[in-house]
């Protein structure tokens, strides 16, 4: 054997070994910690999340939607959504309340009223928004709160695989179903809706994204041709609805007129101004296709610019849209979640950060991998929030698709049909029976700690007890008015996790609760740029964000050990700008837009 051949053989063997070693170093398996986890977490990361469902009196449990019997073999995957959570303060008492959706026929949604003593009481039925999953009306998939009539009380839009319903908040005393005559569509298989004021007329409008086509009542099917026509390029999902608030409780369908005509499988949406013109753009996260980015042309129309903006090239399985300023650059970025399964599918999540100053044609770059927030699992909802008040936004991502029989795996069966022609994948009758199998089940939610330098550390399993429910919606809210963000996770076909957050002392915070007067009353679309100690962080008021979720209305900023804030710059949807010099720290600032 020649010397060259010997060298080549040695190199070959070395590379075989190296490929295995390098791969091992990239594991994204769940973490688990033992011992005195809380003390170590507080010392190392400055916070600890403790589930307190029982102590808080929250005994809600989600049940999945009922389906047509012909879908029974794959019911677990079809009925894999519906666990949603949204935060409100329905009675304006200054304490956050929690609304969970349920999905099974006859199941009740829950509105947990904050009793101010650490406990909550379910008042959904007495308030008229509990018994909302009656047979024939569809299954709840999510809810968003928004003061559509500007009376100072947040109203409720309930979206379903069924008939969307609008409830007017009667001064925090009860909810009145005002769907009839409101102009809402008769039936949408929706997993996403947000309130936003796309034309800045001071009235909250609605976006509802369809998932399955609205032609189908999934409990009474006439066909099995309901599935996506492709795993990556499906355009046979539900239609979108852009509903303009005309006042007096009436909404007008302006979807076609405004150009939102695609029929992809929408799972999430978020609205914020990325061009600097004061009008909110619409970011839509699609399953089975590329995400969509709609530029708002001064409230007159939307123009899809996903490819132009750099986000519309690689189709993934978009599940969630959330906003964050992870490096305190004063620039709002967009985090979207997807699927990662070792050895099978590596899509990775995205963090899209706009390049340069806001412009008419924003362009995004994906920093998820660089920042270390790429591989999570089969991800659904995600939220940015400063969990330890150190001045940097951390990230919580809910994970897990279907936890069936342990030791089983549906991925192989799934890959058979999803790799095939649309005539096969599109027909539910062709999908292999699940027979109780798991698919990306028993996954731990991902919690990423922001190191403060644009990089994140995976602290899942270190900062809370181990849990592997099938996580769906995530919401962040200060449930006990302590100046910290607690975490609420709605889990599919299971109990939610209500995490009480313990934060080390010494870090400061400041909250802003914005209320519009010229702008919409909820100030949805308003931004605050906070400057302190050389930092600058931007946050946006949203009317629903994440996957089937809504955070608390007030915006929470951690400040680290800083003793003062330099200034807060508020930009209202009306265009007005206010500057607050040195607002007091460790306080909630309730700010009403000046009419003058």
């Amino acid at each position, binding site marked *: 054997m020649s010397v060259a051949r010997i060298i080549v053989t040695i190199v070959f063997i070395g590379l075989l070994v190296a490929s295995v070693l390098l791969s091992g170093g990239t594991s994204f398996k769940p973490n688990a910690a033992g011992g005195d986890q809380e003390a170590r977490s507080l010392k190392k990361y400055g916070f600890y999340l403790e589930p307190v469902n029982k102590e808080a009196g929250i005994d809600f449990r989600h049940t999945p939607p009922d389906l047509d019997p012909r879908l029974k073999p794959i019911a677990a995957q079809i009925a894999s959504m519906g666990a949603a959570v949204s935060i409100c303060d329905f009675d304006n008492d200054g304490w956050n309340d929690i609304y969970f959706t349920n999905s099974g026929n006859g199941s009740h949604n829950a509105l947990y009223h904050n009793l101010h003593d650490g406990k909550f009481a379910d008042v959904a039925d007495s308030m008229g928004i509990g018994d909302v999953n009656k047979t024939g009306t569809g299954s709840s998939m999510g809810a968003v709160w928004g003061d559509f009539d500007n009376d100072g009380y947040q109203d409720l839009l309930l979206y379903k695989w069924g008939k969307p319903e609008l409830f007017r908040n009667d001064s925090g005393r009860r909810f009145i179903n005002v769907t009839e005559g409101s102009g809402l569509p008769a039936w949408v298989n929706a997993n996403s809706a947000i309130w936003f004021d796309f034309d800045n007329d001071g009235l909250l409008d609605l976006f509802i994204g369809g998932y399955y086509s609205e032609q189908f009542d999934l409990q009474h099917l006439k066909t099995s041709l309901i599935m996506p026509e492709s795993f*990556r390029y499906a355009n046979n999902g539900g239609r979108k609805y852009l509903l303009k608030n005309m006042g007096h409780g009436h909404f007008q369908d302006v979807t076609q007129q405004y150009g939102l005509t695609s029929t992809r499988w929408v799972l999430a949406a978020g609205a914020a101004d990325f061009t600097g013109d004061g009008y909110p753009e619409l970011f839509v996260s699609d399953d089975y296709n590329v995400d969509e980015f709609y530029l708002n042309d001064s409230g007159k129309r939307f123009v899809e610019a996903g490819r132009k903006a750099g986000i519309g090239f690689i189709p993934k399985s978009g599940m969630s849209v959330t906003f964050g300023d992870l490096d305190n650059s004063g620039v709002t970025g967009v985090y979207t979640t997807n699927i990662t399964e070792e050895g099978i599918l590596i899509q990775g999540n995205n963090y899209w950060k706009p390049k340069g100053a806001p412009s008419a044609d924003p362009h995004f770059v994906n920093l998820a991998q660089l920042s270390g927030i790429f591989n999570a699992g089969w991800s659904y909802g995600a939220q940015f929030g400063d969990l330890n008040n150190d001045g940097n936004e951390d990230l919580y991502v809910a994970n897990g698709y279907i936890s069936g029989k342990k030791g089983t795996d549906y991925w192989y069966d799934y890959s058979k049909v999803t790799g095939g022609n649309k005539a096969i994948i599109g027909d539910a009758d062709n999908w292999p029976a699940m027979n109780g199998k798991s698919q990306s089940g028993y996954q731990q939610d991902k919690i990423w700690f922001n190191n403060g330098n644009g990089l994140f550390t995976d602290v899942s399993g270190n900062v809370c007890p181990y849990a592997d429910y099938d996580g769906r919606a995530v919401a962040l809210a200060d449930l006990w008015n302590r100046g910290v963000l607690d975490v609420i996770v709605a889990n599919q076909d299971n109990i939610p996790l209500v995490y009480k957050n313990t934060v080390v002392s010494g870090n400061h915070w400041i909250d802003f609760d914005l209320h519009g007067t010229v702008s919409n009353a909820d100030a949805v679309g308003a931004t605050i740029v906070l400057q302190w100690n050389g930092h600058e962080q931007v946050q946006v008021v949203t009317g629903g964000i994440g996957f089937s979720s809504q955070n608390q209305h007030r915006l929470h900023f951690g400040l680290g050990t800083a003793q003062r804030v330099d200034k807060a710059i508020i930009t209202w949807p009306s265009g007005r700008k206010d500057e607050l010099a040195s607002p007091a720290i460790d306080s909630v600032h309730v700010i009403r837009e000046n009419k003058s």
Partner: protein
Amino acid sequence: MPEANVETVPSNKLSRLWTPENFKYVPPAFLTLILLVGQFTYGILDSYLNLVVSVVTCLISEIILARTVLHTRKNLASAYISGISIGILIRSNMMWPYAMCALLSILSKYVLRYKGRHLWNPSNFGVSWMLFMAPLAVAGLSIQWGNNLAAMAVIWCLGLVIVNRAKRLHVSIAYVISFAVLAWVRSLITHDAFLAELSPLTGPMYQLFVFFMVTEPATGVSTKRGRILVVIGVALVEFVLRLYGYIYAPFYALFLVGPICKYFDLRKNAPKLAKNQ
């Protein structure tokens, strides 16, 4: 109606283009066409850079290894096919797996040899190794391409014409028939719909597999009957692997069956082949 003035191309001109000497450029051109059509209609590549890395790594390593190990110059069509195949077939969020897979593929041609011939299809070796041994870094294409019926039909028709010209139509046909029959058997065992078992064959991964991997002349056995038996063997092993839930069963099956058959074929026929050459 006046007759159209049709200019005819002399058939000998076309046939000159279609010579064995020139034919070696047809499969790479066809693969490039699949890639371009896929990219511009669907955007199949997550990153151009990863494709460039795998192709360039294959080409450079082929040039260097041919010179240093075999002391010769090799036509780069085969390395180009390997590079393109790797760029399309594997998915990773990092760049190193593409370079690694390309290097392993080409190196396997120069290290894993018997009687002067390589045993593994290069890209099959690299892709199978990475999928099986580096699952934390690499995933396959299986569910990552479009599945438009018309596009699929065009690719299948063109592919069949080309493998026919390469005198390997019997290999592709034998494999497809074996797969379909065994899919039906699997459907009886698993109680899944026959179409669900047949479904992978309609996907893009199999287009590359049927036209570029199982038909590769260099790693095929010497007789037509033998090649048909080998490919039936590949389908049978794949059948078993599928029953055990291996998503990348076709790659693994070829990885296992191909070299063994090639080894015995060379052992039996290599002196004769050498004498003939």
